[in-house]
């Protein structure tokens, strides 16, 4: 693939744009077993039921602060993360629950983190926006729009420095593309041929401001300015996400080349649950997307049409996902909060490893 803009044959184009399942025969999808296809569906459903359950907990005042829901965007994280190999890494912003589940994190500590419990994945110290699991190559979960993108370039830098065949996926929303740190990271990645894919999850709204009112030009095409390859794809079809992303990931792993991929998607809920979502879009817009492009419904139809599973199988998976979310909520509810003694743990590596401390003097102050 050249550095010229989107010569990618799998990039969305005018011909046959939204035909469901048209990517089922793409090589990366054709090799999937029946079970692997069902697993893609199952993870999407688990994300959705987890988040719906978390919303109920939020409404019941079990969860504080922000809660940025991913509902509607599930095929993006699931499609991308399903492609991860041993040396591939992921970093994302604050709408991070979907990616966490997609990389394989257990939903119990995820829910407990929302409840602010010590059993949470960050011991109740990070909250909704700050999920991490380095053991699964998942580096957060970051709260400042675009702030994680230089870190994503850094993951790629480390992969390259160590001579590993891997790639980093640095996710951001469409609102992040106007942040300076993102462009600085683009420049570095292109300048130094870092194996990073900058994934713009374009849900159409930067918080409560539409793309048209916040971003000039085409988002992915900005990569041209850095002589970086780019592509776009529809994010409601998990097969399409896998097909497009796989090409860029392979190129990153094998040729150490960065790219920007804009994945068109949609969120059903407000920017966060504190967003009344009444001022900047029409309810009919949400309903239209749900009716025609819901990623879970679209994929369920494809799998049923292809004879991969039946309606009953889909229902059973859904029931299991609801049960899993309830179990996670019960686990969170039953777990203890951290104590005041925990506040000053996990601040310094040295303090947490006193036997290996080399510095002296006071690290904390009153």
């Amino acid at each position, binding site marked *: 693939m050249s550095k010229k803009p989107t010569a990618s044959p799998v990039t969305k184009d005018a011909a046959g744009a939204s035909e469901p399942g048209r990517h089922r025969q793409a090589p990366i999808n054709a090799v999937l077993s029946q079970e692997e296809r069902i697993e893609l569906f199952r993870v999407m459903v688990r994300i959705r039921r987890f988040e719906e359950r978390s919303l109920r907990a939020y409404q019941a005042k079990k969860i504080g602060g922000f809660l940025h829901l991913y509902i509607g965007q599930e095929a993006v994280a699931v499609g991308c993360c399903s492609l991860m190999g041993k040396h591939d890494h992921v970093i994302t912003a604050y709408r991070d629950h979907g990616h966490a589940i997609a990389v394989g994190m257990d939903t119990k500590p995820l829910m407990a983190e929302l409840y602010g419990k010590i059993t949470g994945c*960050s011991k109740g110290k*990070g909250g909704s926006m700050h999920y991490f699991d380095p053991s699964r190559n998942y580096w957060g979960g970051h709260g400042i729009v675009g702030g994680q993108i*230089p870190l994503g370039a850094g993951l790629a830098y480390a992969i390259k420095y160590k001579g590993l065949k891997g790639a980093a996926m640095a996710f951001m929303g469409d609102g992040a593309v106007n942040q300076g740190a993102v462009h600085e990271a683009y420049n570095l990645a292109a300048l130094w041929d870092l194996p990073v894919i900058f994934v713009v999850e374009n849900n159409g709204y930067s918080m409560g401001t539409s793309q048209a009112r916040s971003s000039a030009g085409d988002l992915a095409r900005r990569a041209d300015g850095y002589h970086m390859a780019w592509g776009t794809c529809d994010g409601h079809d998990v097969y399409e996400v896998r097909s497009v992303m796989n090409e860029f990931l392979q190129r990153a792993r094998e040729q150490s080349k960065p790219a920007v991929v804009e994945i068109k998607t949609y969120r059903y809920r407000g920017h966060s649950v504190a967003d009344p979502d009444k001022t900047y879009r029409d309810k009919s817009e949400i309903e239209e997307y749900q009716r025609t492009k819901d990623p879970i419904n679209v994929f369920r139809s494809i799998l049923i049409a292809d004879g991969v599973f039946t309606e009953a199988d889909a229902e059973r998976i859904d029931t299991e996902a609801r049960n899993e979310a309830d179990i996670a909520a019960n686990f969170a509810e039953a777990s203890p909060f951290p104590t005041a003694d925990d506040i*000053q743990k*996990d601040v310094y590596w040295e303090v947490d490893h006193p036997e290996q401390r*080399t510095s002296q003097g006071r690290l904390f102050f009153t």
Partner: protein
Amino acid sequence: MPQITYREAIRHALAEELDRDHNVVVMGEEVAQFNGTYKVTEGLLAKYGPKRIVDTPISEAGFIGMGIGASMLGVRPVMELMFWSFYSVAFDQILNNAANVRYMSGGQINCPIVIRGPANGGTNVGATHSHTPENVLANHPGVKVVVPSTAYDAKGLLKSAIRDNDPVFFLENTILYGEKGEVPDSEYLIPLGKADVKREGKDITIVTYGRSVLHSLAAAERLAKENKISVEVVDLRSIRPLDIDTVLASVVKTHRVLIVEEQKPFASVGSQLAYMIQREAFDELDGPIHRLATIDAPAIYSPPVEIEQLPNPNRVVAAVLEALA
């Protein structure tokens, strides 16, 4: 013992750590081909090659953020800020990402990164290039802040900083780069958080760090000769962690304290020190704690007046006499 400059001491520390650990990478604007704006990194590219000594674009948020990300995966970047004043354009990376990522991940991640470069006034470069952000940096739990005053300290502290598993911010001084001091040929480390009594005395303790140590020592010499006043000079060397015990031991000895710092006064390092000294050694004090700081305005350009804006030996002498009056 050989006499080398503060600049060479830092360079030797970098070279020794580059030799010791393959994961150490030196990175920053003009550190490689140009040999460093202040020649700290001179010759390193020739010796270690472009994989280890990396020129970056003028893009502090980008390259420092990148270094933080790389450090999470075990690379140990030593990033040069051409001036610490440029920290403001990378503030989110330094103080949201590097400082917080360990905490927010519940202790799953650590950032073994060093950010180093000069942070000082006195070179007539105006307000934008004369910041001394050690108080701002040290206000963030999760980071370590070091400000060496001599060649010996700079080398031993930088080697410790590079081996440290937490983010360490290392604040040098362009005016000190050419200052010579005795540095042994054999390897040594100085632990972070260990103050150093640079001059023993009995009448008053000056608590200071960075270039102000040199001003304080010059003032102490004059005060001894001209006023028969015996000044003890405690060099903090490290702001966070802070060796308050050495400070308190000196207060117990002299019962008088002057803090000298190249900081704007409001919420400075000295403010924190004064709080701690009065809180922990109130009964030892024979008078109020005094402080000599930078005169509270943006850094003035006018060369002769900038000298007066900053701590200098004359101002230190006057401040000691006032404290003992």
